[in-house]
């Protein structure tokens, strides 16, 4: 064990000595400087080890040989050890990162840095409130000087504003300390807490608490007293910003944490309100921010708000501190390492505006790290923030603090909005051929180190949180990690490895699942395998493609095996983020991916809120099965949780992301998104229905609402599909509509309805996978997605044509292929259920589907070929092969529907009394019957007869060339004028005009614009004038007083 006192001793001894040692040269100075920092780090790591591995007792050091309260004491326990380790690692790494900057500034800069580190350490260790003040001043003064060190106008201005704020804060702090001293007769924090002095509500003591916390709230950069902080983050050298944002803010937060037990009820609430307001507002304002370091500043400030809110809530809603210690630690360390890492990257890239960050694309390592840190900040699993946020929201739910849930979730969404926009620009922004970032090894090293720490910490926190089925839940991550090892090898090897690990995972899951879960995981894993095979048609794949694909598929499969809410939510998020990262690989998919991520996250946050409501009625509920006990809150919970699923199935109103994302994603990926990913939402809805049945919202049954939602989705999406010129966009809308039918089926809550849904789930996977893959092959060969730029490809790509033909027949529900089975089940179910009007609309939608089906196949394959496509080759075998597997399935289930329907019927049987019976191969419902086998034979038989007949009759028929037609008494010669494909359904569009207004898109655009405008109005308070910032600080004082004096 190292005596904590040696930290200040070493820091000061070295700092005082360095000016003399300067004459021995820079190298000596640097060695000593790093030795000192290294000593700090080593000492704190030793403590960390002692407390967590050896359960050592808390270290208490009394100075001057007297016990407190006579003397000042330092304390290092497990919490302090964690903080110190983080801070000292940051300092060491930060100093390493800043080395050239320090070298330029000279020796004194190292002194400043060393003392800055000392200040932070002191803030963490001291247990004396006045000593805390002294260390706070050391930290602040050192940071003022570090900020102004480069003597640029901006950093000087920012530093000056900071100093004004800091001076005000220290005046308030000192005021508070002296009043507290008078009241308690001691300066020792533990003594003060023990004396219970602050429980007294005399004005003097309340005033003391007021001054104390006001000061720390200012130091925590709470709204509106934080203009200075933003300037500092923007102007300072990013290496310094990293130290301030992570290090000193963290240390100050810990100081606040330390003295927070002094606060009374009113302060718990004030902290919660101020913190969550700051979190929301700074993220809101950041929406319009384009300057990277300032953007990060807003994010930092927001994170401080989040921490303060969590602290406040922790005391406000329950006194069980241990749970909150976990939450605070998770949120804190998450922010700590991620933000430092991002600032460092900002320092490497040296691009001020987010639009210029596309330069990052040339450097995959940096891009990867940026993505990692941003994901951490967003609270994606497995980062610590995820576990923290989950626990926090659950706790808030348990204690009925839903305004907190709402604010924190809203703020998180806003944060995602601007961080992901930034990442999107880095990933897919327009490239400029200017200076590329050229990171030094040193810089990459420290940034990478922090990424590693972030991941490790996340794993550690997750390990504490995931108590049951740990391995199942983290399996996807492990698989992805394994596949990362194969990056850089040939595509074949990567695909092979992916198939192997997925198969392995399938075998792992197999014994865990039965019934519906088995069915869905079969689609997720089996479908995934098939789609992975199809990816081979592109000979080159950028790094990360296969790990992400496998992550996506396997996390979806885990959804079916999840027993706990947390495990489910975790894998839901994994699926969302991996699919986001996949979508954004499309060449022009920046905006689409952004929208996708935003809607998905919004949905996921709503799900989180739903689970949190469940905590209210069933505290401590961890299992999904606990949803069954929702009772009177069933309606709310169902509505909230279903949001996530509705987004994923792109139900009307939540569908805005889908057409763009499907269209712009890479072609084979689109097939996976449509065929497989959308089914995750269906699985979710089924799960909800299984556990919650059909809850009521007041007197309205929610499954009726869901049913109508599905119906309208099916109708409108189909309607939009027919007016698309882009083949993928057409199929995208089609996909939305088809999934709408499945939603209808689920919503019916009947045996037949679910059969319809399950049948259609598989069928949609088959034909939409088929269609998207076929179209991918076409795009691969022709290089365009616009259907009117193609034509007559049937002669060049007959196999693909056949695929598409089978696909559209199956899609449109024309007998005898599988599509009809879905339609039959659906209408039987609808009429049985009494949903007549819905059945009518669904029928309308399904006839409209013919229009786009025909358009798709006509514009691409029929008509007259374009001159430049006369030599187009058939799609590669590697993409045809999976298509023909799908076709085989379609034929099998068309011929023998019973093979699928009977097991499905058995799967649904536990939930509803079966209303579908069998007479041989004839399925008999309460209304009608259908024999798919006879139908198939009949059709084939008649078809064969007619075919033979025609063969005989048209013996002498001659094939003619494309233009061999008579068109308005002349022979046309150009396909552009002859191939009728562009604006194919214009008359229909004219007829349907009233239904085609994009009201929902306008609605969401309005929401987006109003939110952003709100941000830009609010940010006017940061007018850049240091004096105004001082006024805002005084304003915060008055606000806080009003908030707290009432009690």
């Amino acid at each position: 064990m190292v005596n904590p006192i040696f930290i200040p001793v070493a820091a000061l001894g070295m700092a005082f000595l360095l000016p003399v040692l300067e004459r021995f040269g820079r190298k000596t100075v640097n060695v000593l400087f790093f030795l000192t920092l290294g000593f700090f780090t080593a000492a704190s790591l030793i403590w960390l080890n002692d407390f967590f591995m050896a359960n050592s007792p808390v270290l208490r050091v009394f100075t001057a040989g007297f016990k407190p309260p006579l003397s000042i004491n330092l304390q290092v326990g497990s919490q302090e050890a964690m903080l110190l380790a983080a801070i000292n690692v940051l300092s060491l790494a930060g100093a390493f990162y800043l080395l050239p900057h320090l070298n330029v500034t000279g020796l004194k800069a190292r002194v400043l840095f060393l003392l800055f580190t000392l200040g932070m350490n002191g803030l963490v260790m001291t247990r004396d409130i006045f000593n805390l003040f002294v260390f706070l001043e050391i930290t602040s003064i050192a940071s003022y000087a570090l900020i102004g060190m480069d003597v640029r106008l901006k950093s000087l201005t920012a530093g000056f504003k900071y100093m004004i704020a800091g001076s005000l804060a220290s005046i308030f702090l000192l005021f508070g300390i002296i009043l507290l001293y008078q009241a308690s007769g001691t300066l020792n924090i533990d003594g003060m807490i023990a004396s219970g002095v602050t429980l007294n509500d005399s004005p003097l003591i309340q005033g003391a608490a007021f001054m104390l916390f006001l000061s720390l709230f200012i130091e925590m950069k709470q709204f509106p007293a934080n203009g200075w902080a933003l300037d500092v983050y923007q102007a300072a050298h990013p290496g310094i910003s990293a130290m301030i944002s992570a290090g000193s803010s963290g240390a100050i937060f810990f100081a606040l944490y330390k003295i927070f037990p002094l606060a009374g009820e009113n302060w718990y609430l004030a902290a919660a309100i101020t913190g969550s307001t700051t979190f929301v507002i700074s993220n809101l304002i950041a929406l319009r921010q384009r300057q990277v370091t300032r953007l990060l500043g807003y994010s930092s400030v927001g994170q401080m708000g989040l921490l303060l809110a969590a602290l406040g809530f922790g005391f406000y809603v329950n006194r069980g501190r241990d749970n909150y210690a976990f939450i605070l630690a998770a949120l804190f360390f998450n922010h700590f390492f991620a933000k430092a890492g991002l600032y460092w990257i900002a320092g490497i890239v040296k691009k001020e505006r987010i639009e210029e960050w596309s330069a990052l694309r040339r450097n995959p390592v940096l891009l990867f790290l940026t993505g990692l840190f941003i994901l951490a900040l967003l609270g994606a699993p497995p980062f610590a923030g995820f576990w923290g946020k989950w626990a926090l929201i659950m706790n808030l739910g348990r204690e009925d603090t839903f305004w907190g849930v709402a604010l924190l979730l809203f703020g998180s969404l806003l944060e995602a909005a601007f961080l992901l926009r930034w990442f999107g620009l880095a990933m897919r922004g327009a490239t400029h051929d200017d200076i590329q970032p050229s990171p030094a090894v040193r810089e990459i090293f420290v940034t990478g180190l922090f990424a590693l720490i972030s991941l490790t910490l996340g794993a550690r926190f997750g390990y504490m949180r995931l108590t049951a089925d740990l391995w199942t839940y983290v399996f996807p991550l492990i698989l992805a990690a394994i596949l990362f090892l194969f990056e850089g090898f040939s595509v074949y090897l990567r695909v092979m490895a992916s198939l192997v690990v997925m198969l392995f995972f399938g075998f792992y899951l197999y014994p865990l699942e039965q019934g519906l879960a088995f069915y869905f995981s079969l689609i997720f894993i089996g479908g995934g395998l098939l789609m992975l095979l199809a990816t081979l048609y592109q000979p080159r794949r950028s790094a990360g493609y296969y790990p992400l694909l496998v992550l996506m598929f396997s996390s979806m499969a885990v959804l079916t095996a999840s027993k706990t809410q947390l495990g489910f939510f975790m894998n839901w998020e994994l699926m969302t983020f991996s699919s986001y990262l996949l979508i954004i690989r499309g060449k022009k998919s920046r905006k689409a991916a952004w929208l996708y991520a935003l809607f998905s996250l919004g949905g996921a946050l709503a799900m989180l809120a739903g689970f949190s409501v469940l905590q209210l009625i069933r505290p401590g509920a961890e299992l999904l099965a606990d949803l069954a006990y929702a009772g009177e809150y069933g309606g709310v919970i169902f509505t909230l949780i279903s949001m996530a699923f509705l987004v994923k199935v792109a139900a009307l109103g939540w569908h805005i992301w889908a057409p763009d994302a499907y269209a712009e994603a890479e072609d084979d990926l689109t097939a996976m998104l449509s065929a497989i990913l959308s089914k995750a939402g269906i699985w979710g809805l089924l799960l909800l229905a299984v556990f919650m049945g059909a809850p009521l919202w007041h007197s309205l049954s929610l499954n009726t609402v869901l049913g109508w939602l599905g119906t309208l989705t099916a109708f409108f999406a189909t309607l939009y599909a027919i007016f698309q010129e882009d083949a993928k966009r057409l199929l995208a809308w089609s996909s939305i509509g088809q999934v709408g039918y499945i939603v209808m089926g689920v919503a019916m809550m009947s045996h037949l309805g679910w059969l319809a849904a399950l049948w259609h789930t598989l069928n949609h996977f088959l034909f939409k996978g088929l269609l998207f893959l076929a179209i991918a092959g076409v795009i691969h060969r022709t290089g365009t997605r616009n259907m009117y730029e193609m034509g007559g490809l049937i002669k060049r790509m007959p196999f693909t044509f056949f695929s598409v033909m089978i696909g559209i027949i199956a899609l449109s529900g024309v007998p005898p292929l599988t599509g009809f089975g879905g339609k039959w089940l659906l209408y039987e179910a609808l009429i049985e259920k009494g949903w007549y009007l819905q059945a009518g609309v669904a029928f309308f939608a399904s006839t409209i589907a013919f229009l786009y089906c025909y358009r798709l196949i006509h514009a691409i394959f029929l008509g007259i070929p374009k001159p430049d496509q006369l030599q187009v080759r058939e799609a590669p075998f590697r993409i045809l092969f999976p298509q023909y597997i799908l076709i085989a399935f379609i034929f099998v289930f068309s011929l023998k529907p019973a093979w699928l329907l009977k097991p499905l019927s058995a799967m649904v049987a536990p939930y509803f009394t079966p209303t579908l019976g069998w007479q041989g191969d004839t399925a008999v419902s309460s209304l009608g019957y259908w024999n798919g086998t006879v139908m198939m034979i009949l059709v084939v038989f008649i078809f064969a007869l007619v075919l033979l007949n025609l063969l005989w009759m048209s013996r002498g028929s001659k094939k003619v060339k494309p233009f061999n037609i008579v068109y308005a008494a002349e022979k046309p010669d150009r396909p552009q004028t002859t191939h009728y494909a562009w604006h194919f359904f214009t008359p229909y569009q004219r007829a349907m005009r009233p239904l085609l207004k994009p009201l929902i898109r306008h609605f969401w655009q309005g929401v987006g614009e109003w939110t952003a405008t709100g941000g830009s109005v609010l940010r006017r308070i940061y007018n850049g004038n240091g004096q105004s910032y001082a006024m805002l600080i005084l304003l915060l004082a008055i606000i806080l007083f009003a908030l707290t004096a009432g009690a």
Partner: protein
Amino acid sequence: MDGIVLKVVYAILSLILIFNYGMLVIGVTAKIVARAHGRIGPPFYQPYIDLLKSISMRTSVHHGVMFWLGPVFRLTGGIGLYMLIPAVYGSEWLQNFSFSGDLILVIYFIFFGMLGMALGAGESGHPFSAMGIMRGLAHTTASEVPFALAIIAVAAQYHTLSISDIVAAQQGGIGHWTLMTNPLATLAGMLAYLGMMMHSPFDLHMAPQEIPVGPVTEYNSSYLALMQSNRSIFASAKLILFMNLFFGGATSIPEMVVKTFLIFFFCVFVGVVFPRFRVEQSVRWFLKLPTMIGVLAVVIYTVHG
């Protein structure tokens, strides 16, 4: 096994019957329309002459496999549709293959031939074909809406989707016909029927009197013959369907002949009186009045439970 063979034999007989019936109905109707116009008109056996002419044409060209397969699809669709509908109630040999599926199957099988022919016509590369298909499809979507609503109302009324059961429920006099028991559904269904028969005023996609615009533009010779054969079978099948749904079905062949002819005459009559609609006009027309009636029909049953 004997059962199957017997069924096939019955089916073929039934098919021959309906084919000739269809040919004659078309011929007779043309004659009647001509008389209404004050012309003499073609003889009632003209369709047979047309068919023979098409088959015996010496020049025969095609544009590719799909073009070639289009008529096959079309005729398969027509025959198949007929095979799924029980033509005469109680008659064993005119039950066809209606045991393989109910009303839903019948409705969806209507699309089989349409889709196939649309694919074939598309390959001809003639812009008029594509245009005709576009118009036909657009128009069909609209006219199917009231039809679907009518069927739903009927299914709700009888609690079954089996055509035989629906007919059975209507036996026992005109008072039991759907026409009487469910007039709204019948009205919606019959208005939709106007569109489904693709007769004037809803025949823009065929535009029979003017330049050859429509799916069949490029079809010739034996291909056209197949289409013509289909026309008679397909039309008859639809007539029988409507008869079964709304007018009590038929218990004997003469009853069937009379009823279907009257139903057909209804659309001929409307066609003689009204001029042709443009696509958007017909789409909107179907989505207004007939759909409203259909919705009303359905809502009544929704409310009653």
